[in-house]
């Protein structure tokens, strides 16, 4: 898995009534994927298990989104995010991901549970330009902490303009 697939313009689309289910441990290492996941990602179950979830990360995704994602999960809260994923053959597929922390019977976090659904096309039309702008800001700032900051600030500005929280914003798209 050391060589990343070369992204292509080919899009894979989730069926309306399906969802991708995956589980990871606290470090993001995949511990389970359902058949839809295996099928759409193009990897076999064997290839996915034990790998970090970011093998599916598409270069079009701003890093600030993943930072927000991890910050929220570490605060033991659920997160919704529109994510563009990269399949093994270089094609991409958009999902509307819901990730929740899982706990054992004593309430200790043991991993993350992710359900990814087919997003509405209008939502993708709205989010893709925002991600492009954020990614641009990250690249301009040299991908360091500064980039993350600038990128997060763009998202924050959009939310402030609309007067909504991030959660309301993504659910409302």
């Amino acid at each position, binding site marked *: 898995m050391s060589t990343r697939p070369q992204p292509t313009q080919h899009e894979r689309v989730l069926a*309306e009534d399906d*969802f991708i289910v995956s*589980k990871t441990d606290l470090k993001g290492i995949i511990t389970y994927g359902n058949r839809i996941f295996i099928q759409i990602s193009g990897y076999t179950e064997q290839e996915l*298990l034990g790998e970090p979830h970011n093998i599916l990360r598409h270069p079009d995704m701003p890093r600030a989104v993943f930072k927000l994602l991890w910050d929220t999960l570490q605060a033991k809260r659920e997160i919704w995010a529109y994510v563009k994923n990269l399949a093994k053959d270089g094609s991409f597929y958009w999902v509307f991901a819901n990730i*929740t922390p899982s706990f054992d019977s004593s309430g200790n976090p043991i991993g993350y549970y992710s359900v990814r659904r087919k997003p509405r096309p209008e939502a993708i039309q709205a989010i893709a330009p925002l991600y492009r702008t954020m990614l641009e800001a990250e690249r301009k700032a040299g991908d360091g902490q500064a980039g993350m900051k600038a990128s997060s600030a763009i998202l924050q500005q959009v939310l402030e303009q609309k007067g909504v929280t991030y959660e*309301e914003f993504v659910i409302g798209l």
Partner: protein
Amino acid sequence: MKNLSLGSKVHYLVAVALALLLVFGYQAGTAGRLSATAWATFAVLVLVVALSLYTVYRILWAVDNLTQKLKQAADGNLGQRITRIKNGAATHELAWALNDLLDQQEAYFSEVFSAFDHAARGQTFRLAVDQGLHGAFKDAMKRINISVDSLGQVQQMALKEKLVSQVTDLNSGNLIGNLRSIQEYLMNMTQELSIVGQLSKETAHEADDSRATIEHLVANLNQVAEMVAQTNAQITLLHEKSEEITQIVQVITDVADRTNLLALNAAIEAAHAGEVGKGFAVVAEEVRTLSENTKDAAASIADTIESFGRATARMIEDSEQVKDLAEGSRSAVTDFRAQVLKFADSAKTSLFQVNKAQDFSFASLVKVDHFLYKQNGYRVIHQGSDSAEAKAIQSDHRSCRLGNWYYQGQGAELFSQVPSFQSLEAPHASVHQHVHQAVDLLQGHWESDPSIQHRIFTHFEAAERASEAVVQIIDRMVEERHRAV
């Protein structure tokens, strides 16, 4: 292995079959009735049986694994999945079907949990997502969303209610504080006004006394003036008389002068007559001496009268001055009298105004008392029936401030004659009764009983209406009393 009772049985049966075949083979072999082909067939048979045994064993192992996961799921642990599922394995489809079922269940519960969690915080935008769920899961989710939605609304309403209730509580707490300060202020004002009223009353009395005194003074002064005038007239008369006397004295002096001249002539004539006239000359001398004496007496009378005239003239002068002074005093006193009369009038007016103000202020105090009384009644809802507020409203319509005023105080004294006085009693009693009844109901389980809540509300409503009537009647009473005055 006791969980594998089915497997054990199969295992046992296959082992017995194998043993029987071996026995069969051995017996057949010793009997020498089997060909090499038969032996080969027999070996294949043994191999097939052994493979079957292995396959069965593997299936049983997989079934065992599935059973474990299902048991955990039955215990409510939906997080388990079967991984590393071999393609083509007999249990392949079964394992994925179990994973799919657990995926559906876990997604279902995760969504329900999140949606309720948000709704409980009043975040109604986060509904449970049914996309990707199948069949009964999807249907149930749709129904749950209806509940989540209404729960969210209830929660939002509850949050709103909480704020409204907190604000109302804050407001009524402050309202009571404000009313108390107004009540205190009105109490002080009523007290001050009663002092001012007393002072006004005294002033009015004093003004009346002053008026009597001044009238007396005016009468005296008039008398003095009159007497001065009389004296003046008499002195003038006296002066005139003294002038008349002067004229008479002048006449006497003239007569004495002429007599003297006659006596002189008679003496000369007597001297001419000689001895014959000697006695006549003595008489003439006597007459002359008499007339000289008369003239002297008249001169001294004239002197006396002259000094008398000077004295009376001075007296007239003095008397004129006294008259002027008396006139001046009279006009000053008349002005003063007019002022005292005006002062007495304004003292009366201010007494009237002060009485009116006192009534208005008392009426306001009674109104504030009643607002406060009702507010305390409302506060019992929040503060409970053991609170200070509950104790504050225990008074009835005879023992409260208005009751005291009405039955034995100034109200009975000053207002019992006005037409509206009688009509105050019934609504006033009603305010106290309804608030008492409402607060009595607040001691029960009103929180959970809408019918009790309704009755409480009805009592408060009735108390409000009665209180409104009390306020109107008090206003009317004050108006009637002051119209009558």
